[in-house]
């Protein structure tokens, strides 16, 4: 199995005492990968109820089922008054978001500084 077929992984990069959530996703957010990670992703992001940055640099493939997971998390966090920012998606992932009409609906940043500034509403 090569890297593009590897199982999806979630890494938590923030500490519990931080006033933000920072996670990184790696792998393929396709039907199988999203099914594997959805509950863990929700518990590590939405359930924390903090401004959130999701590093997508390691996501090599994003299907609509993965978009659904990201949008659902962003909407849920929004209901708690928090923003969710997607950090540094690859070109094919960003293109897919644009084609689905989500490029201007989701918050997307190219650098960590911008992502945290946007997540805090600055």
């Amino acid at each position: 199995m090569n890297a593009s077929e590897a199982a999806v992984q979630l890494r938590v990069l923030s500490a519990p005492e931080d006033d933000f959530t920072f996670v990184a996703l790696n792998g393929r957010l396709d039907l199988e990968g999203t099914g594997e990670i959805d509950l863990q992703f929700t518990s590590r992001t939405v359930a924390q109820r903090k401004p959130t940055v999701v590093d997508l640099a390691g996501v090599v493939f994003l299907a609509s089922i993965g978009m659904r997971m990201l949008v659902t998390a962003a909407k849920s966090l929004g209901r708690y008054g928090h923003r969710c920012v997607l950090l540094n998606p690859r070109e094919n992932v960003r293109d897919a978001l644009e084609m689905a009409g989500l490029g201007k609906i989701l918050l997307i940043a190219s650098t960590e500084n911008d992502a945290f500034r946007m997540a805090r509403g600055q």
Partner: protein
Amino acid sequence: MPGVEPVVDIRLTESPRELRRLGARVRAFAEGHALSAGATDALGLALEEVVTNVISYAFDDTGQTRHEIHVRLARDPGAVTVTVTDDGRPFDPTAVEIDRSASSLEEVEPGGWGIRLVRQLMNDVRYHRQDGRNYLELVLYTEEARRQ
């Protein structure tokens, strides 16, 4: 191109795990025909969306009957044509109305993105129903066709 099959047939069951196998076959087909990275990504994503829809929504019997999804990849001069057939309930993705009205996170509702992606990724999408099977044909023009 010598040694490269112009037509590849792939038969899948309705298991989500089959999508990874399909993706690998699509990438191998694209590599064999020297398709661009953009064309390879477009084919892979469009097929993922189409077959995900079939696996998720086409069958009513929740695993009681074994179903087969047939994918045919065909390389013609200037285009790749993909045909997906299944024996699920009738569904014409070309007839689905896409809601483009949402302009904010509050307004957007999950759903319909897969079909929207397929229509945007492919140059032509055609559907017909015959003998109890859905036939969905996706056409992607390749670079040499666009230059003509």
